């Protein structure tokens, strides 16, 4: 049994069209999944149904053996955290410390334990010097790191990043990606919704969504070789891979092609 199992999941805002349409996915513990897709392809809706913010029309979501429902939403949310796109709109506390504590307060963690955990996780995301700062004095990247610390402090081991880097400057973006890498190394399961194909390349597997359906769900390397997947879901490949794919048709350039692959996938 997989860690996260999604079976026959559908969701719709109205009766006519399904925003999510018959989704079946299994995700293993410790995996890094990137979710790619056009605007309106259902990426964010998928994320919201996973944490129980939206109730699916049909289908089941099972996380670590618990099936998501009204009664179990509280238990599920202990395991799964979500970092949203706008850093400002998820900062609940008046200070960094308060914000990291918010989730733990809801879980009724005793105060002494909270203080310990706040220090521990603030150090982990490199925000220890900012504990008493107010959100207005922080950069977007710092706020996102505080959000991560808040989720980690709740002992969640699945983190969803819902376009969490899209409102950040290039430097903060790179920094956040580095944090996600260390989280992945620590064994957390990561689901990263993104528009940026270069970010998606870091994942173990890529899920391409199109019009609410799973268009492709394969290992990163496999999916990148398949030009069709991308062009038909209106996604663009990075230049290096585009080049590599066109060189692939000729065996003469095999060496260059492999180099480009290596470059694109390790960057």
């Amino acid at each position, binding site marked *: 049994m997989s860690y996260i199992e999604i079976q026959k999941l559908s969701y719709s805002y109205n009766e006519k069209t399904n925003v999510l349409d018959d989704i079946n996915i299994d995700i293993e513990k410790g995996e890094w999944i990137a979710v790619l897709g056009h605007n309106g392809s259902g990426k964010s809706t998928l994320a*919201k149904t996973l*944490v*129980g*913010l939206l109730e699916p029309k049909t289908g089941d979501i099972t996380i670590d053996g618990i099936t998501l429902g009204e009664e179990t939403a*509280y238990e599920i*949310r*202990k395991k799964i*955290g*979500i970092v*949203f796109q*706008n850093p*400002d*709109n*998820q*900062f*609940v*506390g*008046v200070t960094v*410390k*308060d914000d990291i*504590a*918010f*989730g*733990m*307060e*809801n*879980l*009724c*963690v*005793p*105060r002494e334990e*909270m*203080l310990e955990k*706040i220090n521990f996780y603030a150090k982990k995301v490199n925000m220890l010097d900012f504990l008493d700062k*107010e*959100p*207005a*004095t922080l950069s977007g990247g710092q706020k996102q790191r505080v959000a991560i610390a*808040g*989720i980690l402090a*709740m002992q969640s081991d699945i983190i969803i990043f819902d376009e969490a880097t899209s409102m950040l400057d290039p430097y903060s973006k790179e920094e956040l990606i580095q944090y996600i890498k260390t989280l992945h190394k620590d064994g957390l399961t990561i689901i990263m919704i993104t528009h940026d194909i270069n970010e998606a390349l870091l994942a173990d597997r890529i899920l391409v969504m199109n019009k609410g359906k799973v268009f492709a769900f394969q290992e990163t390397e496999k999916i990148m070789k398949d030009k069709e997947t991308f062009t038909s879901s209106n996604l663009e490949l990075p230049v290096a891979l585009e080049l590599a794919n066109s060189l692939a048709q000729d065996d003469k350039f095999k060496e260059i092609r492999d180099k480009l692959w290596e470059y694109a996938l390790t960057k």
Partner: protein
Amino acid sequence: MKSVIIGQYIPGKGLFYKLDPRTKIIAVFLLMVSVFLFERIEQLLIALGVATLLLLVGKINIIRVIKGLKPIMILLIFTFIFQIMLNKQGQKVVEHDMYFTLFTLLFLVIAFILWRVMVKITKFRFTFFFLFVISIYLTLRYVDYGQTIIQPFNFAIYEDGITMSIFVVIRLLIIITLSTVLTLTTKPTDLTQGLEKLMHPLKKIGFDSESFALIISISLRYIPTIFDEANKIMMAQASRGADFSEGKLKDKLRQVISLLVPMFIIAFIRSEELANAMESRNFVPGEPRTRIHELTMSYRDTLATLFSFSVLILSIVLKVI
């Protein structure tokens, strides 16, 4: 990004900073009640003296407190004038005729212009307002030549009028000083938490003090964010030719609407997203939560509460006697 200062809180050390917010709220409340119970001017003057002494003991910047008085200065002056003019009890202290002639009118216009000009070029707005009021009195009293507009009328000041007006002013002064000390030395978040804990017993009649405190603290947290937003929208409008500083009142109103509509829409989107973020972090309204902030009382709090209680008892005793 510049941060906006909310409330009057100034970080510092000193006696009042070390007190628990609950103690401060209770003490201020008790002291205000006792100020209303004092009935003699000597008692009030002593109370004012004690209040000043407390400020000194607490190492509070007196200038700050005086600045806190500014917004109600006009109110103070008006209460003073009305009390003097309308209270007709006790012995007459002054009585004389008042005149209103063409020359009076001329003098009044000059005084008015002088007042407006002085307010524009100097900082002492209230001093000049006060001078203006006095000059109205003096002109009405002494300028008696020229064509009469209104028949001379009688004007009298009574003993009680004077005492009552001083009374009211001192009372207001003490009350404002007390509340200024409270807001100067207590962080808005601590203040809300103190209120929350004090209002906790109201849960029995269905008042959810925890949600109330959370609402306040989230509002406080979002004030700077929304200020930033307003700035951005104003700049966006300005870049398309909107001018927020000039034009008639009607134009200004229209421009404010063009600022408010997008701000409301953004605020709604924001609150939706924030609700999602809070829910995904397991927030359930009304459910029990632990707190990272803890309020602790020390011997100082006991002393402060004892002090304010004894002042209240003293005031009651004095009233009964």
